[in-house]
């Protein structure tokens, strides 16, 4: 497993909002060690039995939290993220969708300078099945096992985890990096973490059209990754010039096509699936080969 485990102490920024409160409850039910919530002006109250603080600094001092899940509205996210980084939080999971990308760029600059890991924005979060859940992923779909997943999508990650779990391929950790064009952690850092993780046998990479992150990941895979990688790219039949749901999912100026990404990943030695069903077949084959060697 990577990034988080059952002992990770987590705070929730925006824990008293509608979405924050609902997911605080679900994360607690899953077993996540949520030690505090942060909502300015609501310090001293509780939410689902968890103490609420006015500031992240106060929450960290009182609880020793090292990770924060952020549910604040889009125009407050830059402030919330910078507050977490300044208070010594080491891992920020930013769920919020619709953040102005220039705000994200400023937050990325801030977290990089402080060596803080940022996941998201516009992401479902992280799950280490059976241990902990930071975000909005439906815990029941995920099962413990040896497949590490990295994805730009939310529900597509659930779909692929579902068919993998049904076929007996549980997951070590699944990370949704988010669907925005500008974001925190990307493929190389996470591929590298899964490569070093003894609990991960096979890495599943779920990309989509837009940008060149998958092409860069392909170069990284061929140079650095020893474990088998199964890749799937969504948007193989997407028309050019149209934004397909995610802010970052767009083919522009002939760049960012699924074809180019699949070609690069194949050339890097990854197994490239064309449907979620094929992802399962390829993971089965890769695990079978590992058993024989």
């Amino acid at each position, binding site marked *: 497993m990577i990034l988080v485990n059952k002992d990770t102490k987590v705070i929730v920024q925006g824990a008293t909002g509608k979405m924050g409160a609902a997911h605080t409850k679900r994360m607690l039910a899953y077993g996540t060690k949520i030690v505090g919530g942060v909502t300015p002006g609501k310090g001293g109250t509780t939410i689902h039995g968890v103490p609420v603080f006015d500031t992240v600094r106060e929450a960290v001092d009182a609880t020793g939290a090292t990770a924060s899940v952020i549910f604040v509205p889009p125009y407050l996210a830059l402030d919330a993220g910078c507050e977490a980084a300044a208070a010594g939080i080491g891992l920020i999971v930013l769920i919020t969708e619709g953040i102005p990308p220039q705000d994200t760029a400023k937050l990325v600059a801030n977290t990089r300078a402080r060596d803080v890991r940022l996941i998201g924005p516009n992401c479902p979060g992280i799950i280490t099945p059976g241990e902990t859940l930071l975000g909005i992923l439906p815990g029941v779909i995920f099962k413990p096992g040896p497949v590490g997943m990295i994805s730009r999508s939310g529900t597509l990650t659930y779909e692929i985890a*579902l068919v993998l779990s049904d076929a007996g391929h549980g997951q070590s950790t699944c990370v949704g990096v988010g*669907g925005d064009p500008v974001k925190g952690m990307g493929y190389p850092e996470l591929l590298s973490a899964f490569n070093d993780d003894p609990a991960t046998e096979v890495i599943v990479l779920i990309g989509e059209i837009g*940008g060149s992150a998958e092409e860069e990941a392909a170069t990284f895979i061929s140079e650095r990754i020893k474990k088998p990688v199964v890749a799937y790219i969504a948007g193989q039949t997407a028309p050019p010039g149209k934004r397909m*749901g995610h802010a970052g999912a767009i083919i522009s100026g002939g760049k960012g096509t699924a074809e180019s990404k699949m070609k690069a990943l194949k050339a890097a030695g990854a197994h490239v699936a064309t*449907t979620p069903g094929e992802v399962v077949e390829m993971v089965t084959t890769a695990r079978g080969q590992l058993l024989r060697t």
Partner: protein
Amino acid sequence: MNLYEYEAKSIFSQFGINIPPGMRVTKPEELRKVFFGYPLTLKCQVLSGGRGKAGGIKFARDLKEGEALAKQLLEMTIGGSRTESLLVEPKVAIARELYLSVTLDREQGCPIFIGSAEGGIEIESSANVVTVPIPYPYQPYVARDLAKRMGLSGNLLSKVADLATRLYNCFEKMDLDLAEVNPLVVTEGEEVVALDGKIIANDDSLGRQPYFKGWQSKHLVDLSDRECRSRLMGLNLVELDGNIGILCNGAGLTMATMDMVKKFGGRPATFLDVGGGSDQEKTLFALEIVAENPNVDVILLNILGGITACDDVAGALVNFMKKSPESRLVVRLRGNNQEIAEKMLAESGLKLIPDLEPAVKEAIEKSRTLAGARN
């Protein structure tokens, strides 16, 4: 949100960027009020690119020629975008053309300057381009660095660097995705002027930019009526040329479903992402707008409920089926509160399919039968 050239230039000028004097014209006879001398440049105001090549820019030597050209240009459609008006400017005596823009670089995760010593070009296909990442907080030395790397020197270096800093300020303060000056011209009098301007305002930031309040609907002209109404409801609809209407929750899953339909031999008619935490009202709107499309024979609804509760979706389906026959529907529904959803839909005779691949295949099968019956 793409802006028209005259809107972009007006914003540039508020940030102290030199623009030529100009007048927006919607009727040929308005040329009589032009307050500067001939020859004139007349430019179609459209939201698409490739205007020059399409013949959307003309020069007039006198009023008579100007009125004739204006009549012709005002009727033009370029790249699917109708001419909204004309921007009329005096013809500028150009000594040199440059290119300058600010945009966000998704891979580096920061804004960048893009500059070129050649202007009026298609920047994607030009070899002579420099890019400079812009650190936060901004300092003007970055613009001087850019100008130097564009090969400029002396007064011109200072003037272009000053304009680049203003362009960055505009980009940041107005929350833009792109601020572009192409060409940036140096006049024979050594003045640096933004001869053409393009702005793309960031859609997610419109809520905090009072300047753009109410602008969105008049700038969605390159979308179909249904795409436009969906956008205003906060839904992402893309219409395609097939006969299977696809609705899903989540962008990645919608794309994957569309890909599967195509791979197994079907033809997608819509891509509609109803979003993660969709409510009943939104889901019903989504179903109705897909059903409205006359090319749609079958509606494939694929919901994998993480945040989305299946009973909310079932509620929308019950309401939808009051008006529309269930024979066109193929529904894959799985996740939270699935049992409640099944009970709600039991009476309707609508069968829920728990797995995606069988649902896709069923939709394709049904689309063939229904398309056959229609022909």
